[in-house]
């Protein structure tokens, strides 16, 4: 296909306003993105999620809060993160120009810190004195432990026992940062079970505890709030790409587990109809094998962890275990806004297998000298198709959501090497 010609960003903005369907206007007053989202939580938590919703709305509108957050993002997190032209990668595929949004250069090594900084400031504003979180790969756990250390709040991180085993360096990092890591052995002992356990903690400690969810998933207002805190990614890309190329990109790409890095990149572009959006799910051993983590490509709508969204489930509605080499994508659901964007056709959800992600991991390491997180490597794995589709004059921006140092042991094991 031909790359669309690029009107200036101002003319795009006026086109956006004329659209009958404003994708950026969601969620509605009930926390719904179309049919998805909502607040499916036990009654004990309802007053708390209402309180959080009100507190976040007030903070969002408060210039003082936003200025404080911007200050920490600049001086503590190290934003803005660069938009880097991956010259050798571009040449390798021979299609569209590939830019990498370098979220892996943030403090703590992934995009997760953007959201954690926003939520910890909100938690303190609400007078909460204890922070809990769930983590899969450990990136969100590390980011949460980091902001808790920075602001002197006690932190408990729930982590599936399986993930504790495959992400040992991150467990140690969290301990160094003063957090208590509680291994979760119930269910499949991975991210979904860590989230169940964090919810059980929250329902038990309602008065002082703030639940710092790491993805744009769960009950309203989390999907919208986490998206807003991650939207700094897309907002920066918008400015940076216009500065470098004089126009908006033709396509955006990101890996999707719960989907916070993807929605943070996509959201500021939702009304730019000429910017194609590609999320990449983890196909594990292959969607057709049933051993995968691709909620949209291999699941159907249902209710889990407070929201209606696409889920991996059996015919009885029991949640199935997700399978992925990537602990950060090893989740049987997806954020409700992605479910909506899929249904309305605004974004396209592809998938990449464990093997394809491993190949992309080594490829980026060798061609660009950058070790990508195995999560981000799933998005990299679909670059051949997307750069070809966009074509030689086009521009693709891929969110490099995390760095891959944490994965070297797992990658070595899969390549049959010992280190």
């Amino acid at each position: 296909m031909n790359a669309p010609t690029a009107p200036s960003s101002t003319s795009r903005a006026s086109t956006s306003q004329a659209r009958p369907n404003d994708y950026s206007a969601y969620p509605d007053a009930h926390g719904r993105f179309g049919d998805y989202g909502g607040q499916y939580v036990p009654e004990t938590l309802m007053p708390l999620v209402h309180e959080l919703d009100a507190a976040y709305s007030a903070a969002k509108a408060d210039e003082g809060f936003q200025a404080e957050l911007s200050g920490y993002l600049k001086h503590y997190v190290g934003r803005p993160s660069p938009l880097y032209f991956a010259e050798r990668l571009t040449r390798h595929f021979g299609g569209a120009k590939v830019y990498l949004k370098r979220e892996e250069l943030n403090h703590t090594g992934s995009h997760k810190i953007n959201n954690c900084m926003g939520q910890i400031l909100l938690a303190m504003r609400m007078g909460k004195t204890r922070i809990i979180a769930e983590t899969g790969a450990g990136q969100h756990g590390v980011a949460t432990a980091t902001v808790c250390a920075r602001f002197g709040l006690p932190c408990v991180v729930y982590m599936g026992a399986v993930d504790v085993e495959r992400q040992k360096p991150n467990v140690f990092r969290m301990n160094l940062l003063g957090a208590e890591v509680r291994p979760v052995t119930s269910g499949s002992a991975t991210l979904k079970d860590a989230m169940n356990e964090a919810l059980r903690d929250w329902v038990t400690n309602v008065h002082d505890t703030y639940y710092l969810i790491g993805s744009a998933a769960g009950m309203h207002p989390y999907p919208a709030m986490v998206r807003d805190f991650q939207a700094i990614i897309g907002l920066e890309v918008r400015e940076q790409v216009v500065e470098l190329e004089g126009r908006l990109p033709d396509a955006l790409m990101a890996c999707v587990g719960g989907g916070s890095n993807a929605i943070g990149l996509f959201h500021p572009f939702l009304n730019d109809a000429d910017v194609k959006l590609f999320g990449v799910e983890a196909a594990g051993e292959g969607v057709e094998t049933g051993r995968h983590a691709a909620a949209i490509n291999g699941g159907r709508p249902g209710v889990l962890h407070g929201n209606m969204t696409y889920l991996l489930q059996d015919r009885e509605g029991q949640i199935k275990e997700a399978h992925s080499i990537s602990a950060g994508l090893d989740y049987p659901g997806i954020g409700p806004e992605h479910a909506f964007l899929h249904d309305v056709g605004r974004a396209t959800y592809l998938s990449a297998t464990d093997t394809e992600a491993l190949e992309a991991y080594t490829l980026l390491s060798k061609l660009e000298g950058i070790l990508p997180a195995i999560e981000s490597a799933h998005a990299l794995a679909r670059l051949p198709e997307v750069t070809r589709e966009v074509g030689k004059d086009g521009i693709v921006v891929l969110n490099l959501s995390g760095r891959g140092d944490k994965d070297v042991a797992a990658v070595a094991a899969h390549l049959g090497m010992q280190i």
Partner: protein
Amino acid sequence: MSKSRIDARFAALKAEGRAAFVPYVMAGDPDRDTALAILKGLPAAGADLIELGFPFSDPMAEGPPIQRAAQRALAKGMTLQGTLELVAAFRAGDAATPVILMGYTNPLVTWGIEAFARDASAAGVDGLIIVDTPPEEAGPLADACDAHDISLIRLATPTSDDARLKVVVSRTSGFVYYVSVAGVTGVKEADAAAVAPQVARVRAASGLPVAVGFGIRTPERAAAIAQVADAVVVGSALVDEVAEAVDLNEDVTLRVLSKVDSLAKAVRFARRVPV
């Protein structure tokens, strides 16, 4: 028809001047046949109403005992269809004891909300407690329950203030379930002195009987709660009996029913505090 079974039972207990004892058991735990034997034995052991859990893989409000009960039931192949079959089999021999299903939203979504209410009603189910469907999300479920004479029973909690309580009791019938502790099932202990004024508040807001559950494990505590509530629910302590009997290779049915008997007696003979 169905709603009247719950109402009739509470009216009869009111005439007797005592609280109801409501055991919670998990469908299919430890297996289908044993669960049916337990279910059939519950009324004679002193159950006034029955809460029957249907298993879900990710029960976010349950503590370890009921989590494990659900895992045991799922491992033995229990399904929502199987749960309705258990109710129908129970109903064939007992037309009076109300049965309330308790569980999570997703299996119902899979079945179809409207179809499920119809099929549950046909099987003899009188009420539904869906833990993760709060009033804000309950519109379609409430419509379906109304259409098929099933009571949609709501949970009130220590975090429900007066404004919230109004929302909680909207479109509810049968009784209100007061969750006596902020927490998951079967971990914290309920305190009768703290529960009493809350029960009165929920009763006043709803005009319905109030059952108290979460955190009641012993006959002594059941008796104390029976003095201030209209019904006492015990769940985790019973599913723990299932687990221990399985572990020790004892007769599961006998063990569970004898625990029910001791709890029911404690409730039956507890002196009611006039309200």
